[in-house]
């Protein structure tokens, strides 16, 4: 007997001929996440699921947590592998398993069986019935309930036999690397890290861009963004973070354009710059943490005005989320505490008291004409002087 894990996946089961690509990507991600914990594991594909066999001692909680972060995995079950599947030794091993897993053996249960070894002397229903009566005999406190048992005891008879009863929920989604790459506009706030997490959950690799405006934003604000990128990279894998110095552009806009349009025009330039970097990096879209109506710059009119400058598709995974729903995810993925550190908006100089909430595109475009003289050079300069930070993941 030894320990292993059975990982199940939902969506990639239906991807036809590309299936092996998805399964390989998934195995690779499982390996990557397990590399970071103590122990040595073998990850193998087997008939529509993945087996992870532990080759030495490991911490169960760490392992479940690590695999729980892998997108594409729908559930994780620690299983006991029974090499000698001959009936008497199988029943004893399943009994030992129950004894080991459950201190309090007064629950109701149902045995479920899958049998791929068709030569096995018992059919699946027979295994269920016989195993059930063996367990009842060995543990008098147990009772059978075939409709809503407290515990399902799964017995699988393949080349070897497997028994498991606990099922942990996986991260869901699709394996990283199965859906290309996108450029995330990452700020120090609560929303954008969550947006990055959510897009990665659909199998998308993520790079990120952060707009830094020293001295109006501090080095600590930048460090906070690096910390956030590190935190989401536990899910998204390596992130290349582009830090763009936006001060000159921001000040130029401030001087040339109406103050109530500042935020919109700034965001339009952020989008333009992000798009430029995205195209250079082979990204297929931009990702933002915008959600309709959250702030003045996220009304539908404002979103349309910023969207206007983008040729790449802009993905907004949080578009219909309420703030609390976003906070819930941020807490789950561990970015919330970092996001609420107060370094970000210390400098509200560039936020107008009454920003436009219903910008008119033609008006905004006309205002931007006032920037014609220098803005091209400034954007080029910002692109050229950007700092690139590799986040390992």
């Amino acid at each position, binding site marked *: 007997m030894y320990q292993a894990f059975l990982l199940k996946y939902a969506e990639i089961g239906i991807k036809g001929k590309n299936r092996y690509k998805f399964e390989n990507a998934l195995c690779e991600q499982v390996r990557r996440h397990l590399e970071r914990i103590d122990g040595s594991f073998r990850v193998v594909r087997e008939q529509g699921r993945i087996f992870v066999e532990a080759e030495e001692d490991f911490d169960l909680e760490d392992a479940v947590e690590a695999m729980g972060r892998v997108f594409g995995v729908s559930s994780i079950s620690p299983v006991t592998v029974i090499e000698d599947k001959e009936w008497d030794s199988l029943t004893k091993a399943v009994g030992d398993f129950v004894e080991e897993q459950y201190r309090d053996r007064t629950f109701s249960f149902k045995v479920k069986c899958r049998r791929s070894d068709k030569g096995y002397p018992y059919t699946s229903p027979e295994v269920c019935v016989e195993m059930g009566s063996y367990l009842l005999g060995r543990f008098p406190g147990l009772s059978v309930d075939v409709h809503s048992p407290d515990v399902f005891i799964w017995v699988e008879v393949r080349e070897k036999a497997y028994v498991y009863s606990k099922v942990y929920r996986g991260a869901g989604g699709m394996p990283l690397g199965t859906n290309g790459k996108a450029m995330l506009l990452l700020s120090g706030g609560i929303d954008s890290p969550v947006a990055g997490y959510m897009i990665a959950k659909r199998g998308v690799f993520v790079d990120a861009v952060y707009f830094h405006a*020293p*001295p*109006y934003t*501090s080095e600590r604000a930048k460090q906070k963004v690096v910390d956030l990128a590190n935190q989401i990279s536990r899910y998204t894998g390596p992130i290349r973070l582009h830090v763009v110095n936006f001060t000159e552009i921001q*000040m130029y806009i401030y001087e040339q354009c109406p103050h109530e349009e500042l935020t919109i025009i700034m965001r339009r330039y952020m989008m333009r710059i992000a798009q430029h970097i995205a195209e250079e990096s082979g990204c297929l879209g931009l990702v933002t943490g915008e959600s309709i109506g959250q702030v003045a710059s996220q009304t539908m009119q404002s979103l349309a005005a910023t969207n206007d400058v983008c040729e790449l598709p802009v993905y907004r995974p949080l578009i219909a989320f309420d703030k609390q729903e976003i906070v819930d995810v941020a807490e789950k993925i561990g970015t919330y505490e970092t996001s609420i550190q*107060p370094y970000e908006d*210390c*400098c*509200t*100089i560039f936020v107008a008291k009454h920003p436009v909430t219903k910008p008119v595109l033609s008006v905004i475009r006309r205002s931007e004409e006032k920037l014609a003289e220098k803005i091209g050079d400034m954007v080029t300069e910002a692109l050229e002087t950007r700092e690139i930070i590799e986040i390992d993941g």
Partner: protein
Amino acid sequence: MEAYFDNAATTSVFPEVGEIMRKVMEQDYGNPSSRHTKGMEAEQYLKKAAEILAGTLKCQPKEIIFTSGGTESNNLALLGAAAANPRAGKHIVTTRIEHPSVHEPLAYLEQQGYDVTYLPVDKNGRVKVRDVEDALRDDTVLVSVMYVNNEVGSVEPICEIGRMLRRKNEGVLFHVDAIQAYGKYKIQPKKLGVSLLSVSGHKIHAPKGTGFLYVADGVKIKPILFGGGQQGGVRSGTENVPGIAGLGEAARKIYQDLEQKREKLYSLKNQFIQAMQTLPGVTVNAVEGIALEETAPHIISVSFEGIKSEVMLHALAQEGVYVSSGSACSTHHPELSGTLKAIGVADSLLDSTLRFSMSFLTGQEQVQEAVAAVEKVLPVLRRFTKH
């Protein structure tokens, strides 16, 4: 170029201090409580440091209790003195501009049933001796006044308060937070009538995590840390031998030619203030109508009209000039600086105030650099001020 003007926050460690610490950590690493020779060697460092420190205060080595720094010294002084003198009364007198490591333990004592009087200060940040005297009651057990204020550099009338307390001869304990004053002034607690005096190491080029509390012979305090009974049971815990050795060395160095060094600092301070006062919309706090020598030599508080201190701070950092903001960003820290408020800085300037603080390592060039940096960033930032 780098001009470090945040010495009231912390200082660099003197190279000699680093050397001696390294030696203690790598070679003479014994536990001073161990009976063997390694232990004795370590104990020698403690003795030597206590002697040096006692020498600077003209007191006895046994009156020095090593701590982990200013916060612990202040906590030990206030909580320890209160606990040791329960029958002497439950009233404490202090000022509105003390450091949080004094105000917070006092707030804790208030919860325990103590009554604390917080005295106001004038526009230059000084408490009136008369106010202290008037605040005294029959049940006053302790007076706690800082020597030098950390935010604006005001110097409190410690000598006069001590004299007044001695004249009244009522056995009221006198605690002085000397964290910003030690190493800048020759302080003789006995002469001043001070019973407890707090010192921090990292403000005088010793490492962080070091400091001491002077406890006058005969003054009883109770410990706030309990354990192996080191330092006569007043402060349990294996002594930070390398840190203490470093603290002794730093104190020895800093008190050499103190007068000359202080004069140099005053001349730098004077230069800096003069330069600031020529700039429009710039005010130097807590120096109005008094001689420069009545203020601390190393701290200068400056308000810049219309500019957020944090923005200015980052802009100066870009120029290689490191300072502190008089108060943090108001959106997230509603409690703006108590000291600035207490000395009557206008509300509009509370979030526009920076502290420039020097040490004996600060030179003329750095002052020029800092002035140049201010002159450079001021007009740029003013252009983008919200009106």
